[in-house]
């Protein structure tokens, strides 16, 4: 028997088992009502934000002064069917602005988490697997990065360079990776001593081969399930930056800047700030419901309960 057949023979049942574990987690999550609710609400919001702005003739940025301060349908003295959720201080449609804001929010959230996942887990796996001084250097940098609150870093960078979607994503990713590095590192350290890694070493497999082909598929899926929760966290951060005036710049609507602008009209036109806030909160709740259901399912499967 040659070395390759040994690896192949060992690999096949392992791959089958991994797939089944991940499938089992997904199936367990799908069985929970909270995951289903979150999933359908999320899909509905996603489709609405993807399709409605494309087919509707209403503009999110065009100002129509005669239509300003229209209330949502049936909820005020002045409303029309043209603007279901009312208009803001400059006569712009709130539904449309919220949906466009949601688009950017989701874009920033998802891309940032993917970046964080790649950077954080990459560094963490490498540090944990290599050990020795690689480990020390990378983890001390991680600790230092972790001790600077994300917001201070973000406003320091975005406060001076003009905030665009890519810079916002980079800043959020830069400040979000350390936790992932920590988690991936501790998993890699635990994995390093295991039988199959020693076996692969005896067979002459190099560090990278073991790390990328065998260890990573064992460690990463459980972390990825929980990363869903961070999409929501990043969306909140994007909104906070917008609120501080450091997010996506007007006239492009974003939740943070809409809510910040609405403060002046809070008493006379409550809907301008409240409705985008509810949109954001519903989107976040749907993502969090899915995320925590996945986390619960993961803990149940791994905990053997």
């Amino acid at each position, binding site marked *: 028997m040659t070395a390759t057949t040994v690896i192949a023979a060992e690999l096949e049942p392992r791959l089958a088992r991994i797939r089944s574990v991940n499938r089992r987690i997904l199936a367990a999550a799908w069985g929970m009502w909270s995951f289903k609710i979150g999933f359908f609400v999320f899909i509905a919001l996603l489709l609405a934000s993807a399709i409605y702005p494309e087919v509707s003739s209403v503009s999110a940025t065009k100002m129509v002064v005669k239509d300003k301060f229209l209330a949502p349908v049936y909820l005020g003295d002045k409303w029309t069917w043209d603007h279901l959720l009312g208009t803001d201080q400059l006569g712009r449609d709130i539904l449309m602005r919220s949906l466009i804001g949601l688009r950017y929010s989701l874009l920033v959230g998802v891309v940032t988490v993917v970046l964080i996942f790649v950077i954080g887990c990459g560094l963490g796996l490498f540090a944990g697997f290599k050990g020795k001084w690689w480990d020390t250097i990378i983890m001390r940098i991680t*600790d*230092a990065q972790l*001790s600077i*609150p994300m917001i201070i870093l973000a406003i320091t*960078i975005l406060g001076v360079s003009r905030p665009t979607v890519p810079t916002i994503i980079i800043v959020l990713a830069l400040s979000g990776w350390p936790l992932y590095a920590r988690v991936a590192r501790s998993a890699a350290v635990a994995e390093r001593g295991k039988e199959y890694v020693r076996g692969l070493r005896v067979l002459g497999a190099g560090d990278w081969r073991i790390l990328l082909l065998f260890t990573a598929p064992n460690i990463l899926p459980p972390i990825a399930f929980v990363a869903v929760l961070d999409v929501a966290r990043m969306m909140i951060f994007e909104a906070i930056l917008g609120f501080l005036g450091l997010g996506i710049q007007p006239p492009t609507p974003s939740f943070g800047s809409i*809510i910040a602008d609405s403060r002046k009209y809070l*008493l006379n036109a409550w809907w301008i700030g409240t409705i985008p*806030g509810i949109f*954001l*909160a519903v989107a976040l709740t749907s993502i969090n419901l899915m995320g925590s259901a996945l986390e619960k399912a993961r803990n149940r499967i791994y905990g053997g309960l």
Partner: protein
Amino acid sequence: MLILEFLVKRIAQGLLIVVITSLIIFTLLRVVPGDPVRLIVGGMAPPDVVEKVATKMGLRDPIIVQYGRYMRGLIQGDLGQSYLRPRSGMIAAGGQYVDPTKSDMALVTDLILERLPFTLQLGGMALLFALLISFPVGIAGGLHQHGWQNALAFGTQSLFVSIPNFWLAIVLILFLSIKLKLLPALGYQGFSYVILPALVLAVEIAPFIIRTLTTSLGEVMQAPFIDEARVRGLSRRRIVYSHALRNAAVPLVNLLGIQLSTLIGGVLVIEYIFDYPGLGNLTVVSVVGRDFPVIQGIAITTSAVFVFINIIVDLVAYLIDPRVEI
């Protein structure tokens, strides 16, 4: 002896972390565009004046030289002087020329020490509120894994974590302080001004505590020693409060160490919205004004607080459960 060794090791590591943090912030401030001198001398000043002031302030030296000078001051407890704030407390208005090399600018150390108590008060109250909210919900959820209590804990946690803090702050200001006039909101004139911002922060922290408490208590209640305690005839109250909770507390204490940076970030935004005179508000104003010494001072202070609290957290975790490695 073991604790002493631990303390020495961790404090040494902590110092290293603070040094790296200060280096990161120091370099970042000078690399990203935005010249503080331009803001100090005003937009109308000719470029040669800008250069002259900048050279006088040492801002044109290589970054590493500036950093060395800064660290020498730091060792003597001197964080430098603000570029923008005179000693009298008034902030220099844009364009009004204040010579930052003169000695009448406020010391960064004073600025920070003046505001730190306010921020600690806010953070402490927020933590207290968060514990008051999450303990009943979390314990009930952990004890009844398959009952409505668990669903309640799950729902509360999912809802709270999904509410953006700044939005909640605005809505609460609108209802509680403008419409119902129950609580004051903006500024600071006494203890009652802490309550509303602390509540908003508590809603931000509570879901993490609820989640950890529910999960870890649920796990502990499955452990053999709980069954054994029942066999010994201990009351349920005794089992839960002195056996299960003590064991479930370790992940909770660890969580507080990790979530600290979320808390600090939240404090910053909340202070800005409520115009609360703490460190967070100072940070936002300083970043906008490119007040380098103040930003550096705050970054060093927060990272030192972070390191200190994490050492305490690990020590407390060890004291609660001696099996934890330190």
